[in-house]
């Protein structure tokens, strides 16, 4: 799949932003007043910034309101509904903490669940697609949730929890890559079933429909070199997990080191998310001879 910057920025920043909101909703850290304001400001900048980035990939963002209507069937619609509900409820809850110094716990828990729900629905948009075997598996939402709660914990200063969650997410990430590499071959979809000609013999593309490119090739036929992908995977592991884990283990790490850990983590997640799209093989590529199985 084409690794569109808008979607990568959106899912990375919003994922971490909603993760932080979830921790705040559950009351970790238990902050009020100006400290609470700072935490909420960061969470909203990330979550809303990501959402705004995501609208730039729409052909007609001016009609975005229509996207709230089909929550009964569409995960994308559910994501929109969840995101807006989470942001509204958490704003109310945050106002309680910042301006009245009181924690409306019930509101916080609902807001936290909606925040987690937003990231889950984002993950389900990809997971539901049978056309991308690499994504069509429960490990996809597991990975998105892992990044959400571990990144959120890091930002929320919950280092003990962050340590174990980062470790867990790193394991899930490795499983996702390991399983993903054979997912297309395992899916049973290949040029033989795509053309129905497999019963006659070996099928090979002879001539594409057009000499030029087209929307389908631009959107779905992106391919990333094996070496290139491997290097990026290592980079993602080091930045997203190894460095933050080291910082957590470091005795007496201060605010500055915490900032390093957070930035390193976010850059690592960007790399992982880029790979999530760039490495995903859409079955339509088979028709164009773009997938060798």
């Amino acid at each position: 799949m084409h690794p569109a910057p808008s979607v990568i920025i959106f899912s990375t920043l919003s994922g971490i932003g909603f993760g932080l909101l979830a921790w705040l909703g559950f009351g970790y850290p238990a902050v009020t007043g100006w400290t609470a304001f700072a935490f909420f400001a960061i969470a909203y900048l990330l979550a809303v910034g990501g959402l705004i980035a995501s609208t730039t990939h729409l052909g007609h963002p001016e009609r975005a309101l229509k996207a709230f209507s089909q929550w009964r069937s569409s995960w994308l619609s559910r994501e929109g509904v969840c995101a807006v509900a989470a942001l509204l409820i958490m704003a109310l809850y945050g106002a309680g903490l910042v301006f009245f110094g009181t924690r409306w716990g019930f509101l916080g828990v609902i807001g936290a669940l909606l925040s987690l729900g937003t990231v889950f629905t984002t993950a389900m948009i990809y997971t539901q697609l049978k056309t991308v075997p690499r994504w069509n598996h429960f490990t996809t939402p597991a990975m998105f949730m892992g990044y959400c709660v571990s990144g959120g914990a890091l930002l929320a200063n919950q280092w003990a929890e962050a340590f174990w969650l980062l470790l867990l997410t790193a394991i899930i990430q490795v499983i996702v890559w390991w399983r993903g590499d054979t997912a297309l071959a395992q899916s049973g979809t290949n040029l033989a079933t795509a053309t129905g000609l497999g019963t006659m013999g070996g099928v090979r593309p002879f001539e594409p429909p057009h000499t030029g490119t087209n929307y389908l090739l631009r959107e779905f036929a992106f391919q990333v070199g094996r070496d290139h992908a491997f290097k990026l995977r290592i980079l993602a592991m080091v930045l997203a997990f190894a460095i933050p884990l080291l910082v957590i283990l470091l005795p007496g790490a201060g605010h500055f080191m915490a900032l390093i850990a957070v930035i390193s983590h976010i850059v690592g997640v960007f790399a992982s998310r880029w790979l999530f799209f760039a490495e995903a093989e859409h079955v339509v590529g088979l028709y164009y001879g773009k997938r060798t199985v």
Partner: protein
Amino acid sequence: MTTLPQSTEKKLGLVIDLDTCVGCHACVVSCKGWNTENYGAPLSDQDPYGKEPSGTFLNRVHSYEVQPDEGHAALVHFPKSCLHCEDAPCVTVCPTGASYKRVEDGIVLVNESDCIGCGLCAWACPYGARELDAEEKVMKKCTLCVDRIYNENLPEVDRVPACVRTCPAGARHFGDFADPDSNVSILTAERGGMDLMPEQGTKPVNKYLPPRERDRSEDVDILAPFLDPIAAEPQGFMGWLDKALTAMPGGR
């Protein structure tokens, strides 16, 4: 609504005959011609006369080479447009309700004024039947020429999809698959019409007829028995000549 209808009254769709398609791309041209000036936004082209031409098409013809275990490779031309799936994943993913499947005839359409151009339906389609138009930024797909098949302003003979009407080889057939006696149902039954990517679970309405087995020359040439060599071993003068030539240096 982007939930799918439980069932549709008719199941309109196409039968595409991979045996007779000659790969002329006439259906590609007639489809683009009709649909760029009728239902919905036009089908734009980018840099059409330049170095990197590209554009929106609702129907494209691929060509594949099939190599059987024995015998010659076959060249199969492969037209592909929306298959108007019964379990259309492109419809259920749509967040706005712009994509829908009609209850009356099963045609899958996009209501362009509701489409936000998110592209998710194209991601959900395994066949590459949907293309986001680069100019209009809305999703385009085969309409089964809904503006022809019911169009009483057209002579009756033209009330079929443009691609069907145009095909010089008669490789595309239009009809109702819900009716077991329709032309398309009969063709599908007789020729073993197949689904593309059945494992994707989309239940396509359109069916593809596989290429028929090639005739072998021994089966067709009724004169062949008369053309067999009469004597396997040359005799008489020819026999002597054959022996003499074989005996010469380098003769065999």
